[in-house]
């Protein structure tokens, strides 16, 4: 086929069409659409791999993408020293054909190292999502749906967080085709740090995006509370002791009352006679002081005095100093009882304000975290070495470091190479997919050159980093971070 055959017309160029030359089909692709293979797309007039090849100058430094056909940034990393080739966009090759696409030798601290760089097709993969919120998202084991398809389930809640387990082989390939496609799309979006709306059977709708606050039923979660109202009493009682007569920490889960609470009794704080609404659990701990809502401490209360049922004149006294505060420190108020034992707002003493601020300071920002979890299968390992089980053992013995897009992975104990990695730390758009459906993720194995040879690696295939840089045109990723 001559060059003329693949040249685009003026009109086509004007319409933003690009010609993909990644395979012989030579698709012409309109802006915002993908070619016949779904692997290459036209993004703002540029042909991009859905998962572009990325190179890290150093694991922590600016990231560099290989862009075929562009010489603009060539040579930025020509030195090669300390650079790290990620598997992102490396494409995949398999043992039946050939070893992994890049086997790069380099020197670190005078030791010869080899990094085997590839992209894995992970049929067994999913994400574990941690959502920092105390709001009830749904019952454990409830299905989590996207576009009506079950893509995972609610799993064991953790302290201050709700947990979801999404994806996995049963949703990807074990259910209907649509379920698989929707699951794959949802996983891909979550792994590439896009927002996904998840609907939980018998529960909430939550928008999840890695490293961003969750949005539960349309409300953005700002802070993760320091603990429940009771826990807050326990944590801060000694700091309040000399400045207050009573503290009520308003919380939709458990509201704490200092003078009745074990924490206050231990400090000999005398009973103050202020009774709150709700159902007493144990001394100083009350359930259901109000309805859930967007007011104080996750309740529907905007005036904290609403939760006070009565003030016992046998115990309370004029001048009694009362602090009311929410579990995040977002809301607080200071009252003193007048001669009729009615709480009157007053200026909060600096020492008390200081402790309120400390509650807020101890609240972490509420985030969603997305951990990609997958197993490196037999053929992926065979792309690294002719003797795959030795790679497993080498990883297990920590002689081989496993990274995804340059980010160290946690490798589970036990058999195989089952790993987890925080997608927020990986370069943007690290993930792709194949129509199987399954996710494609970069994976790199780094080990000493002599260890690599010993485990049956394709040592003769190793090329120097300089050669890799020379063979590919290199561009500094402008949003490198």
């Amino acid at each position, binding site marked *: *086929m001559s060059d003329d055959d693949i040249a685009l017309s003026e009109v*086509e160029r004007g*319409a933003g*069409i690009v010609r993909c030359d*990644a*395979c*012989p*089909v*030579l*698709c*012409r*692709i*309109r802006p915002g*659409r993908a*070619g*016949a*293979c*779904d*692997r290459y797309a036209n993004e703002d007039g540029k042909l991009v791999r859905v998962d572009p090849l990325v190179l890290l100058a150093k694991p922590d430094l600016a990231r560099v993408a290989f862009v075929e056909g562009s010489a603009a940034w060539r040579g930025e990393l020509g030195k090669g020293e300390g650079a790290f080739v990620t598997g992102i966009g490396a*494409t*995949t*090759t*398999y*043992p*039946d*054909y050939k070893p992994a696409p890049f086997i790069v030798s380099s020197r670190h601290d005078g030791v010869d190292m080899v990094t085997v760089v590839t992209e894995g*097709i992970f*049929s*067994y993969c999913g994400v574990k999502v941690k959502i920092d919120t105390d709001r009830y998202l749904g019952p454990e084991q409830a299905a989590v749906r996207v576009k009506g398809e079950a893509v995972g389930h609610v799993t064991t809640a953790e302290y201050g967080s709700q947990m979801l387990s999404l994806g996995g082989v049963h949703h990807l390939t074990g*259910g*209907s*085709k*649509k379920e698989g*496609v929707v699951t794959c799309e949802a996983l891909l979006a979550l792994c590439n740090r896009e927002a996904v709306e998840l609907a939980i059977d018998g529960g909430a709708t939550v928008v999840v995006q890695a490293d961003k606050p969750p949005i539960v039923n349309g409300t953005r979660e700002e802070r993760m509370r320091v603990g429940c109202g009771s826990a807050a009493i326990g944590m801060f009682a000694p700091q309040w002791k000399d400045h207050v007569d009573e503290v009520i920490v308003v919380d939709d889960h458990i509201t704490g009352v200092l003078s009745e609470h074990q924490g206050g009794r231990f400090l000999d704080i005398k009973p103050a006679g202020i009774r709150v609404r709700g159902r007493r659990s144990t001394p100083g701990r009350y359930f259901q002081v109000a309805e859930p809502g967007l007011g104080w401490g996750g309740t529907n209360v905007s005036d904290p005095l609403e939760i006070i049922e009565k003030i016992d004149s046998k115990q309370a006294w004029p001048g009694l100093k009362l602090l009311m505060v929410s579990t995040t420190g977002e809301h607080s108020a200071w009252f003193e009882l007048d001669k009729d034992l009615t709480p009157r707002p007053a200026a909060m003493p600096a020492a008390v304000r200081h402790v309120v601020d400390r509650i807020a300071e101890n609240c972490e920002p509420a985030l969603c975290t997305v951990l990609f979890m997958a197993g490196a*299968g*037999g*053929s992926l390992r065979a792309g690294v070495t002719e003797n795959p089980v030795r790679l497993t053992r080498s990883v297990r013995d920590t002689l081989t470091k496993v990274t995804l897009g340059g980010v160290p992975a946690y490798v589970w104990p036990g058999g195989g190479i089952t790993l987890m990695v925080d997608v927020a730390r990986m370069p943007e758009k690290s993930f792709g997919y*194949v*129509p*199987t459906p399954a996710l494609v993720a970069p994976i790199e194995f780094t080990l000493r050159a002599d260890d690599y040879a010993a485990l049956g690696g394709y040592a003769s295939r190793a090329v120097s980093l300089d050669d890799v840089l020379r063979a590919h045109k290199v561009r500094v990723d402008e949003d490198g971070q």
Partner: protein
Amino acid sequence: MSAIAARLSDGRLHLQHGPIDLIIEAFGAADEVERSYSQAVERFGDILPTLVRELPILRRCVTDAHPLPHGPVARRMAEAVWPHRAVYITPMAAVAGAVADEMLQALVKGRRLDKAYVNDGGDIAIHLTPDHELHAGIFATALDGVARLTFDQPVRGVATSGRGGRSFSLGIADSATVLAATAAAADAAATVIGNTVNVHHPAIERRPARELDPDSDLGDLPVTVAVGALPPALVEEALDRGAAEARRLRLCGLIEGAALSLFGRWRLETAGMALAEGLAG
């Protein structure tokens, strides 16, 4: 990007080159299976390059002049769509099935296998021997049916057309699954039948194919982009049209059976064989 081959963890062979994505499985003695896989890998590298050389012919609407491409896959495509030339059709309507048929032939040639299949994105070519059978699941919203394929039936190809796939359809079917003598024949017929599952309604969004893909063989024909909620009567009407076309093709001897779905409603067109057993629910 060159062709890649992979073994899936369960042993199946995965071949991919550009838009071609094949899952292949052979059953029989282990060494025969391995040799058949080698034959498939060997054959595969040439499939796409040869095909693309004749793409201009293959994207042209078939009229009374029988297209005469040279490549073996291209010839299968032309042959499969030829009977349907009364409507707008190009050989591309059978590309996936034709690739599956060609790869199946390479896979089984000279090998002693119990059975085998080549699945090209849902268009499946099948090899059977006496006393061995394959079950093809039909998915629309769930596992909606199973076609039991046995040696004594004339079905060696299964294909599905419908929304959610990668190719465009003029119709609105969720799925149109066809059983036929070859995968290419099934593929072409599924396309034709899928196009006839159709009605007019504002909830159906259509756009000229070329606006989406400048290379589409469908030119300016309006392809279905999205289907919103439809009145139940229209769902039935669309399915009835598809079923009538399926029946016509079966009586012409072009297909063995078909199953159509739209919004959870089904139509079956079958002579009482394979499909009838599975889709009772």
